[in-house]
């Protein structure tokens, strides 16, 4: 850190970080008073996707594993909660607790096979498995409702209020993101980063690379399961689309846009992506085209994403 000599270095200390946390926290808590219903609902979606993107980034940015299948595990979470609530008539708490467990179990089975290959083959395997999950959801009418999905899920009255839903999501998402933050800053997380940097070297410091990659896969699946479950409860429905590969690429774009080497990258990326999508689509039918151009420009101009770009500009360090 001795090389930081510019005028923004004071932004790095504990105090500014605490101030930033208080300000962001304050804004998030008072948000229902500040914005209208439709934007509040968008913010809830944003929170849930931010958790999904952070979960993905545990693999993508921290372990260097490019997965094209996070949506599959997200959908496992959503459908677990949906089926338990709507078909099994279970209570909300066990229905939600079961989601990450189920996602972690499926993630373990899928990951166990995927980590046998690396790089592009790994990516292909994750894509293949998420398509399998999608197909199962799509075809298994008796349990998943097939292409009709599961709608009007009997969620508790508590969630009928948008403000309640918002606070519920805010608390749960913050808690999960805090846990992910603890994980990436632990010795375990540092080992994941070393694997990202140089997987073959890590073997020679006595690390079983595949086992750690699998652990990252399972942890990522677990939190994706939480995100899926939250979205199911918030929207009161579950559809095969949740598992579709385009959902996975959405998550990837959010991570890349914000910056995969910064912890807050996926969160910022999700916010930018969601706000862009919603505002542009209000004005034109061709919003996909405009969004595409903006993303291409952002990626070209800002290496390592928006947060990577900012931290480099402000602190001149990686």
């Amino acid at each position: 850190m001795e090389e930081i000599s510019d005028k923004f270095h004071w932004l790095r200390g504990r105090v500014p970080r605490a101030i930033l946390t208080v300000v962001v926290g304050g804004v998030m808590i008072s948000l229902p008073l500040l914005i209208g219903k439709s934007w509040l609902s968008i913010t809830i979606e944003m929170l849930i996707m931010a958790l999904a993107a952070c979960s993905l980034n545990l693999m993508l940015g921290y372990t260097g594993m490019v997965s094209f299948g996070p949506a599959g595990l997200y959908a496992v979470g959503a459908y677990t909660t949906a089926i338990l609530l709507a078909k099994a008539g279970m209570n909300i708490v066990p229905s939600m607790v079961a989601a990450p467990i189920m996602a972690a179990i499926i993630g373990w089975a899928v990951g166990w096979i995927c980590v046998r290959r690396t790089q592009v083959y790994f990516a292909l395997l994750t894509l293949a498995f998420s398509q399998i999950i999608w197909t199962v959801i799509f075809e298994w009418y008796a349990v998943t409702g097939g292409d009709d999905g599961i709608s009007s899920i009997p969620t508790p009255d508590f969630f009928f209020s948008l403000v309640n839903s918002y606070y519920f999501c805010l608390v749960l998402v913050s808690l999960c993101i805090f846990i992910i933050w603890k994980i990436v800053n632990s010795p375990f997380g540092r080992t994941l980063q070393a694997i990202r940097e140089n997987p073959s070297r890590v073997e020679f410091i006595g690390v079983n690379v595949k086992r750690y990659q699998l652990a990252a896969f399972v942890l990522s699946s677990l939190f994706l399961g939480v995100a899926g479950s939250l979205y199911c409860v918030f929207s009161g429905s579950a559809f095969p689309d949740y598992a579709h590969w385009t959902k996975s690429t959405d998550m990837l774009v959010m991570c890349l846009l914000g910056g995969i080497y910064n912890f807050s990258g996926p969160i910022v990326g999700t916010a930018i992506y969601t706000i862009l999508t919603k505002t542009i689509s209000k004005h034109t039918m061709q919003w996909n085209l405009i969004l595409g151009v903006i993303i291409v420009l952002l990626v070209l101009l800002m290496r390592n994403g928006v947060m990577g770009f900012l931290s480099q500009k402000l602190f001149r360090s990686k």
Partner: protein
Amino acid sequence: MLLQAKALLKSFGGLMAVYDVDLQVNTNEIVSIIGPNGAGKSTVFNLITGHIPLDKGTIFFKDKEITRLAPHEISRLGIGRSFQKLNIFPRLSTFQNVQVALFSATGLNRSLFSSAKKLLTEKVQDILESVGLADKAERPGGLLAHGDQKRLEIGIALALNPELLLLDEPTQGMSAAETAQTTELIHRLSKERGIGLALVEHDMKVVFSISDKIYVMHQGMIIFCGTPEEVRRNEEVQRVYLGKDKNSAAQS
């Protein structure tokens, strides 16, 4: 006997890369493997650390057979290594490079929720000091100068508290001053820590000044083994490797 490799054999396709190689390293001993490019020196290292599977032969480390073990298991037993090509964790800081190896050595890397920042800092600092990088602790490893990265590699290997250290061309690409520093470091490691060291090295000045024993390899085989003095006097070695012009071999 710290390391005992017997009758190692490895072929790549039709090419016999390593043929009937015996290698022994004792505690406190500095052993060098020399030979022309393509003689199979690095392959021998790769066979010992499990990077490449053996075709034939056996390897014992402290009387335990390690022939078929995986690289991470072998390194956990106490064999560290550095690589010919730079091989560090470029985006991690110099400090973190060593720290992550220490996490592995202590089993701390299974800890999911403790904060990595303040763990083992003294030990990391010790190692950085012994390889001469204490003042560059916060710099990303990838931004260090070539010689510093080479020494950082040794630091990473040291973090595992190895009893045997395999160094693949530790002074390659270094300036004269850096080479002297590194030679001194290698000497010190053997003296102070009692580590058995095996080097692949092209700089004959380094080899002859620090080795207790030298293996000469040629076309996959060990053609001679002896003390520096014996190697210097041997005619076959003169012919295939040291050649008429000593300096050209030293510079390659």
